[in-house]
């Protein structure tokens, strides 16, 4: 790039080909001294990375019934087109029960946080304020320096920003804008103070999300956008939808002009004058005129219209008037604007300030671009993409490391390329095909803003506290947040203004306002948009990252780390921030490999690492990797399904989705409903032949949607993989047999681990099919809230598909002490308490049980076998199996574990002929059987019985509350068949 103040110093090495994240905070670790696992030198390349918190008040949208419409209609004066059944109200406690606005804002925020562009500051999160229920806090990547400050700095140095730099700014802003516009987003409030510069002097746009987040200004009571840069069409139309992407182009033109002149030429303290000036330039006759000789705006008398309307009153123009005006602007010519710009160009040497280079100092082509941006009619104004194609930018493109350059060299292995080529940098593409370059001694990673935020919170960061500490949280009575309010009595207002916040007062207000009461107070808080951002320094995070790289080195998860799994090093990871930082880094590497490299290599590693810890911030990606979801394939599959077709379950979806996990902000939002519908529909269309939708699949799909909000293909593919692995036998038209089998296994597991509880359940006739169907058909998604469910699923996904059975058992055992005292009725009511289960304990117990239980207990042993000899391999009628309280195990489990007490209940004669070593021969008919068996209580007991008998005896043990009782499937016959050499026969003696 042409010599430029640091702007061109883009470090080409910054793009690594093995990073999961593209933009964020880069960490590089060098290892100078061989052999040592620890890193000697760690650099955090933050480029001035900070967070900003932006609190803004939103208004709740309250829908009420016609019958109560009397209150609603009276408040709609600020709303030019009142809808018959709804009204808007600034939440002063009235609309508390309906949080639709919050939910919609939160769901939209997930879209913003999915954006990623080199010239956009990352949108990190939107969180509802805990203190003010009508306030939302936006957390975003941010920088200290902005164009506004840059102009000041340069002005102080008496060296205005050069044409070349302005060009580069224009190029980078346009890149960001055209990316936003391609995502159907309008910035609307582009201004000098939210065009930030990082330490490398690269453009980062901030605050681009508010317009979208607030539903084009619907959910906020302040106008969005900087008046100086508002396009004429935005000024003329009402609030909602007044700006489209073309408005951003206008704003860019204004901003470039501002930088170049050093000030905004139509600025004035009076907003109505500013509006009139802008409208004048747009060819609209107003009280302001631009005098081409004096180069300034002048007051003039209005020729045609009585348009002495201020900005505040702008909204009150009638609908017809507005339409007329919009029509008018279309008819108007560009004369005024052209005269204005031409006179600025002629303004040769008059420019004696040093704050801007003036239009003459600007490249001709750049002036042309500004002129195009400032075309008053949005229909004629070019869009951002067209402007970006302007030949002027070619040079910048060539130097742009982010710019994709095709045909650098022929690729032979196109399948090596990741799917999203657009986002790849030149360097990344080059590195493909070359293969791994030797970066042996350095290691780098990029942490996204969301991860930095996560770490910051782990370190005790709290956005609300920051706001208080920095003086941003100004308490004010809620009533002041209403756009208009009226004191009940004048004396009250005089004495105390905070005493007005009472429902009665609001009631008064509504009625009085309806009568156009003269003493209406226009609240400042609600109409003036608070554009203050609270910046947060992140050095604490960066030093923690450095520290953790130094402590743990970057090879901590190389071969053999599992051996140290048991060591204290990996204990208590939830609170070990350093280790989490390293684990996140490791996951980045593995997940990248998984998506773009060899999944078969990385998947087992992801598995192992996830057993150690699943960072919540990466949970969705980790889950889909474990489930074997490939981004590219998922997209292909999802896009191949025609969702326009009428599906067999559409009606059912519409009934179920609005009831599914509605406490969750994302799932209860309109976006959430739409996306869940599409995912479920895609699943049901894909499985139209064999599978079928059962109520409950909506619950199963929910966690995936939450993790992949606005990414339906991945959510869908994850759901599909999950159902295939855990639920394929249940989501079919007739699942009765499968469900019964699962419940039987669960019951037998319960008998194995807690015979007392099982006996009691049988006694009070609390059959599993009365309560446990929703557990198994949704893998607990129906009964647990999402946050608890995630903990369970972390383990379930990493374990064999029998784990849900153990979870179910450990869940009910958690409540055993209460259930044991209960009758049927209380017991079944107790089942509704299951959501209060301690999931961490439940998982721990389930895993312990899993490890103590012979594998074969949960595996269906009965494969259809025609060989009559192997009678134990034949399928046993379910009715018969149902009588068995105990699980059956196969000979492998008997042989592999020597710790068992083997009870052989065949007649003594047969026992003498052949028996398993150290087995005990017991006569099941013995009168003092219970006393005799008592000594083995608590040990694993395996019963070897003659064919077709022993059920009664083994059940008896369970009724005597013997735990760990099982029966050897096939008895002695299967031992003779499969392990004859181990047996002790009378012949051998």
């Amino acid at each position: 790039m042409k010599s430029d103040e640091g702007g061109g110093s883009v470090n080409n090495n910054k793009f690594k080909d093995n990073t999961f994240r593209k933009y964020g905070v880069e960490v590089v670790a060098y290892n100078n001294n061989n052999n040592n696992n620890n890193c000697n030198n760690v650099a955090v390349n933050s480029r001035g990375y900070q967070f900003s918190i932006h609190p803004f008040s939103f208004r709740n949208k309250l829908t009420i019934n016609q019958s109560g419409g009397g209150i609603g209609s009276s408040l709609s004066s600020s709303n030019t087109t009142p809808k018959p059944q709804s009204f808007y109200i600034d939440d002063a406690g009235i609309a508390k029960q309906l949080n639709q606005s919050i939910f919609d804002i939160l769901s939209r925020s997930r879209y913003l946080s999915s954006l990623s562009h080199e010239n956009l500051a990352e949108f990190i999160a939107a969180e509802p304020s805990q203190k003010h229920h009508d306030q939302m806090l936006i957390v975003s990547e941010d920088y200290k320096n902005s164009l506004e400050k840059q102009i000041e700095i340069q002005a102080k140095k008496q060296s205005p920003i050069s044409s070349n730099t302005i060009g580069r700014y224009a190029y980078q802003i346009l890149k960001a804008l055209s990316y936003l516009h391609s995502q159907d987003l309008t910035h609307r409030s582009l201004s000098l103070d939210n065009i930030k510069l990082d330490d490398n002097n690269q453009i980062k746009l901030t605050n681009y999300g508010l317009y979208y987040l607030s539903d084009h200004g619907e959910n906020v009571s302040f106008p969005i956008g900087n008046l100086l840069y508002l396009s004429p069409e935005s000024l003329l139309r009402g609030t909602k939808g007044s700006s489209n992407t073309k408005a951003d182009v206008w704003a860019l033109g204004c901003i470039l002009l501002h930088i170049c002149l050093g000030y905004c030429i139509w600025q004035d303290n009076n907003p109505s004058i500013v509006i009139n000036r802008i409208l004048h330039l747009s060819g609209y006759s107003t009280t302001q005129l631009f005098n081409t000789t004096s180069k300034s705006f002048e007051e003039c008398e209005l020729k045609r219209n009585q348009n002495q309307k201020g900005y505040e009153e702008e909204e009150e123009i009638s609908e017809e008037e507005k339409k007329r005006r919009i029509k008018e602007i279309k008819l108007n010519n560009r004369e005024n604007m052209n005269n204005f710009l031409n006179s600025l160009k002629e303004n040769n040497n008059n420019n004696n300030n040093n704050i801007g280079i003036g239009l003459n100092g600007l490249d001709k082509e750049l002036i042309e671009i500004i002129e195009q941006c400032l075309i008053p009619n949005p229909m004629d104004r070019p869009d951002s993409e067209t402007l970006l194609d302007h030949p002027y930018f070619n040079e910048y493109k060539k130097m742009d490391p982010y710019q994709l350059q095709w045909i650098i060299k022929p690729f032979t292995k196109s399948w090596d390329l990741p799917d999203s080529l657009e986002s790849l940098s030149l360097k990344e593409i080059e590195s493909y095909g070359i293969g791994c370059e030797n970066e042996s001694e350095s290691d780098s990673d990029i942490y996204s803003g969301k991860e930095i935020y996560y770490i910051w919170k782990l370190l005790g960061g709290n956005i609300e506290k920051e706001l208080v500490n920095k003086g941003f949280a100004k308490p004010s009575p809620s009533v002041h947040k209403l756009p208009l309010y009226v004191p009940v009595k004048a004396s009250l207002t005089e004495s105390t203004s905070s005493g007005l916040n009472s429902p009665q007062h609001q009631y008064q207000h509504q009625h009085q306002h309806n009568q156009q009461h003269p003493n209406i107070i226009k609240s400042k808080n609600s109409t003036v948009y608070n554009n203050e951002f609270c910046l947060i320094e992140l050095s604490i995070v960066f030093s923690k990252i450095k520290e953790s790289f130094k402590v743990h080195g970057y090879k901590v998860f190389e071969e053999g780390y599992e051996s140290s799994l048991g060591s204290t090093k990996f204990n208590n990871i939830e609170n070990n921030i350093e280790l989490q930082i390293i684990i996140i880094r490791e996951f980045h590497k593995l997940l990248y490999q998984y998506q773009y490299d060899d999944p078969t290599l990385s998947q087992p590693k992801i598995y192992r690492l996830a057993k150690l810890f699943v960072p919540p911030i990466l949970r969705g990606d980790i889950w889909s990797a474990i489930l074997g979801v490939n981004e590219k394939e998922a997209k292909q599959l999802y896009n191949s399904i025609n969702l326009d077709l009428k599906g067999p379950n559409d009606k059912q979806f519409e009934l179920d989705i609005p009831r599914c996990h509605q406490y969750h902000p994302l799932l209860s939002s309109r976006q959430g409903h739409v996306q869940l519908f599409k995912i479920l529909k895609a699943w049901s269309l894909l499985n139209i032949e064999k599978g079928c939708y059962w109520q409950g699949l909506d619950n199963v799909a929910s966690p995936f949607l939450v993790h992949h909000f606005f990414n339906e293909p991945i959510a869908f593919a994850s759901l599909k993989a999950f159902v295939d692995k855990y639920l394929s036998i249940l989501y079919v038209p007739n699942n009765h047999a499968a469900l019964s089998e699962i419940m039987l296994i669960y019951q037998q597991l319960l008998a194995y681990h807690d015979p007392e509880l099982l006996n009691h359940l049988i006694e009070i006739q609390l059959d599993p099919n009365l309560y446990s169907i929703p557990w198994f058909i949704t893998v607990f998604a129906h009964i647990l809230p999402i946050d608890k469910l995630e903990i369970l699923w972390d383990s379930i996904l990493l374990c064999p598909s029998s784990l849900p059975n153990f979870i179910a058992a450990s869940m009910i055992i958690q409540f055993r002490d209460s259930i044991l005292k209960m009758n049927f009725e209380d017991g079944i009511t107790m089942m509704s308490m299951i959501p209060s289960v301690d999931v961490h304990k439940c998982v721990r117990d389930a895993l312990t049980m899993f490890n103590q239980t012979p594998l074969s207990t949960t595996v269906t042993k009965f494969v259809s076998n025609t060989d009559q000899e192997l009678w134990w391999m034949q399928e046993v009628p379910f009715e018969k199996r149902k009588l068995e309280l105990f699980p059956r195990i196969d000979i492998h489990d008997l042989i592999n574990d020597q710790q068992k007490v083997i009870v052989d209940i065949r007649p003594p004669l047969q026992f003498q002929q052949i028996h398993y070593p150290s087995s005990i021969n017991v006569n099941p008919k013995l009168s003092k059987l219970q006393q005799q068996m008592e000594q083995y209580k608590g040990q694993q007991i395996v019963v070897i019985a003659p064919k077709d008998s022993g059920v009664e005896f083994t059940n008896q043990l369970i009724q005597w509350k013997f735990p760990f009782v099982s029966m050897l499937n096939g008895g002695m016959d299967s031992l003779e068949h499969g392990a004859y050499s181990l047996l002790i026969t009378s012949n051998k003696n």
Partner: protein
Amino acid sequence: MNNNNKIFQFKLVLLGEAAVGKSSLVLRFVRGHFLDYQESTIGAAFLAQTVCLNDTTVKFEIWDTAGQERYHTLAPMYYRGAQAAIVVYDIRSEDSFERAIKWVKELQRQGSPNIVIALAGNKLDLAAKRKVETAEAQQYAEENGLLFMETSAKTSQNVNELFVEIAKKLPKTPTTRPGSGRGVQINPIDNGAPKKKCCN
């Protein structure tokens, strides 16, 4: 409450199309609350509640079933042995009314003999969007000897009344009926169970 007060226990089952408000009706009756977004029922849910009549207490063991057609195969498990059933439809949906009629037929065919069936047109609070006329349902109910009421779980209109009517209609004779799954006795139980609701 005199000491001669007798408690009768009955099994009651709720049937009807998905999302007509079966669970909401039960929750309104048993717990007295209403959720705008009642999670769909999978399999079935069990709840119990008592109703006091003049000299007797009727205890309902309520089985609230899943509405989705697919779960139909499970339904017999719950209505078998039930002495009372509430078949619910949504007054805004013709389809749900037709489904209700099918349920009634199935109960008359396969349910316990002398089962008391009530037809409930729910979501009366949304009467503005009514599709099923009261007269139509009323007539059907009369022809088939059903109790009929239009209810609103949201406003609780007619909810208790419905259960009270059923309680009145149930025969209070000490007989034992065949039950399956969970044994159901309707013999009077002498100990005084907690009485949560009293209506006269």
